[in-house]
């Protein structure tokens, strides 16, 4: 049992922190948000240089050879600076599908492009009726010659507007809510039959509403008749990364709040000298530390072989992180008072990111139900 980083991991952490420290001041971030993409191509190319875009791929295929701990390290920095680039979509989710679902040929083609920053990926999964159920898929994929033709509508496709390829879940067989019969397809985002309407989300990131009308898949990821286990695995890896992001964001906004409490004067003294607010800050710290612990558990469990155990672990992670993020986010705003309600102040942006982070792939309430229906973490005896 050892929570220390290896020398290599420490270097990774330092280099990401240094890059974002230079490139992700609040004003810089605002500039990226206002740009056409909604994020920075320059930062993206520096990600590529640092190896962050090849992070999860083997060194033999041009990657960094990182595992869940390395992902956690990067994700935490991303949360600390609430960055806007499509790293989670392209590298964690997209990379996950390539690693676990792509043919060798496809990997050979795409991994170098992803690692170099040329290829952006986005996950088109949510549908209007699906809410957080990964298996609730109405979009269809029909065999047509050697290929597949896809029809349907996907919503909240994170970074779907700038993506080069979309990773689309579509039903090849069965009823809408059947667990079998789901396939995962790679679709050219600019190809025929794909219409995208990009928009900004409340946390300042980008997403798209995507209509697929006879779009042809350029590749199949995994088993087109039974792709749900693949989706589950990739989403679980993403949940572990999201946990890191949330911890980074909570730490940053908590630090910001403590600093503010030390300087902001009310009734002739710093507000941090009021005991009721001190206790609130202490409770936020408890929530943060419990979440940090849980982010380690998430990294540990991302590699768990038994999918039932892995899903349970990630459900627990979502519950802890989501509850903590809600509390820390809301209270950071409350302790700041009015100033945190303005768009010109960073705290509110952390609060918004933490709110969306909680709900990505299902919020704490969703997972507490899931976990309780599957017997929880402790067996009766």
């Amino acid at each position, binding site marked *: 049992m050892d929570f220390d980083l290896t020398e290599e991991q420490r270097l990774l952490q330092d280099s990401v922190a240094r890059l974002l420290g230079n490139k992700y001041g609040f004003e810089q971030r605002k500039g990226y948000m206002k740009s056409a993409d909604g994020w920075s191509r320059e930062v993206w190319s520096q990600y590529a240089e640092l190896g962050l875009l090849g992070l999860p791929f083997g060194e033999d295929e041009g990657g960094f050879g990182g595992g869940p701990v390395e992902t956690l390290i990067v994700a935490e920095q991303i949360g600390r600076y609430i960055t806007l680039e499509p790293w989670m979509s392209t590298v964690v989710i997209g990379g996950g599908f390539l690693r676990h679902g792509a043919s060798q040929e496809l990997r050979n083609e795409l991994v170098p492009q992803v690692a170099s920053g040329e290829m952006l990926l986005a996950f088109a999964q949510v549908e209007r009726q699906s809410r957080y159920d990964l298996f609730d898929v109405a979009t269809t994929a029909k065999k047509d010659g050697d290929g597949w033709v896809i029809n349907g509508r996907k919503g909240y496709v994170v970074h779907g507007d700038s993506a080069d390829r979309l990773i689309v879940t579509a039903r090849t067989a069965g009823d809408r809510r059947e667990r079998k019969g789901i396939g995962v397809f790679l679709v050219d985002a600019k190809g025929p039959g794909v219409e995208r309407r990009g928009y900004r989300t409340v946390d300042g990131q980008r997403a*798209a509403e995507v209509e697929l009308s006879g779009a042809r898949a350029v590749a199949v990821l995994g088993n087109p008749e039974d792709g749900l286990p693949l989706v589950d695995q990739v989403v679980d890896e993403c949940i572990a990364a999201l946990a890191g992001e949330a911890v980074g964001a909570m730490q940053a906004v908590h630090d910001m709040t403590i600093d503010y409490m030390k300087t902001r004067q009310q009734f002739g003294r710093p507000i941090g000298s009021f005991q*009721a607010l001190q206790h609130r800050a202490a409770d936020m710290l408890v929530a943060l530390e419990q979440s940090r612990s849980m982010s380690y558990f998430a990294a540990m469990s991302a590699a768990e072989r038994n999918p039932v155990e892995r899903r349970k672990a990630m459900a627990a992670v979502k519950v802890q992180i989501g509850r903590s993020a809600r509390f820390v986010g809301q209270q950071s705003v409350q302790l700041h008072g009015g100033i945190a309600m303005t768009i010109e102040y960073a705290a509110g942006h952390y609060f918004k990111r933490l709110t969306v982070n909680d709900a990505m792939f299902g919020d704490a309430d969703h997972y507490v139900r899931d976990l309780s229906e599957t017997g929880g973490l402790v067996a009766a005896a």
Partner: protein
Amino acid sequence: MDLRFTDEEIAFRQEVRDFIAKELPAETRERMVAGRSPTKQQVVDWQRKLNARGWAAPEWPKEAGGPGWTLAQRYIFREELQQAPAPSPLGFNINMCGPVIIEFGTEEQKRKYLPRMLNLDDWWCQGFSEPGAGSDLAGLKTRAVREGDHYVVNGQKTWTTLAQHADWIFLLVRTDPAAKKQEGISFLLCDMKTPGITVRPIITIEGGHEVNEVFFDDVKIPAENLVGEENRGWDCAKFLLGNERFGQARVGASRERIRRLKVIAQESMDGGRPLMEDPDFRRKVTEIEVELKALEMTVMRVIATESKRKDKKPDPATSVLKIKGTEIQQMCSELLMKAAGPYAWADGDPDEEDGSNEVDVAPDWAFGLAGVYFNWRKQSIYGGSNEIQRNIMAKAFLGL
């Protein structure tokens, strides 16, 4: 002890309800049902309809142009507006500045301002908060120096709600910097078109433009615009703030939100069934309904007590209403966002007049609900933060 409304009160409620059903424009209602604020024009139109009916200022005495209602009638009227939902009479005019003029103003001031307030010919805004003052309102620094028959004002106000719509502002200024904190403050009325006033928007976290900074740079305000005595403006301020007896509970508004929530949670599917059938979600909704029922009874207790009180001191129960009222409203906004799921997250200023779901990135019922949730975090901060309310309860009521 009789805990029911009288037959007259029940008939009055029906009268209000009928009036709203007949007069409230559908567009105004729909916009508000969607969780967005009514537009300026919608507020003005509605205020004028109320004024035509003699209902523009529920709390004002008859001689000032009010309807002469009992507290119960006022409560019923406001509750019906909230749950319609319809715009409430403009608070700056009707509940803030108006009552101060009625209590402290000259006959001349009453004649000049009150009728235009009732008809919303003038939109007022409030110049109290200043940067740095926060919960410590009396720490204000904006200076007014008497020069001949004018005051010359320099300084800055902040969190000035809807100043961009305003024709007039009422403000607290420091007229005697040597005096102790609460002394040396005066209450002035100022035309927003006076040279030297600059309004700068503050955009709130969800992207809305609701509040502003207002800068005063050698602004000349006629001395006749002083309300009450010079250096006694804190009396006006205390009166104004203490006037807020049960308005912050907003029971009708929360009831309307819960109704809406139930509709949305019936539309929104979760685990293959309407979200409203999920036991955990349903439990959360029920818990707010229960809190709201208790709050409604608390409001009625306050009203019943108020009708018999002689003094004008604030009731400690006011803090209960503020704390619970805002907690319930915030919880409603959170559950509405949750009900909408990922489709709540499309960015867009919910108060934009044009709406912004035109590219159809979310179902209309879901659009903008996260924005409302973010925006409503202000409720536990403003109007005396909920922490300040707890201080008040501990000190003024429990004697700690």
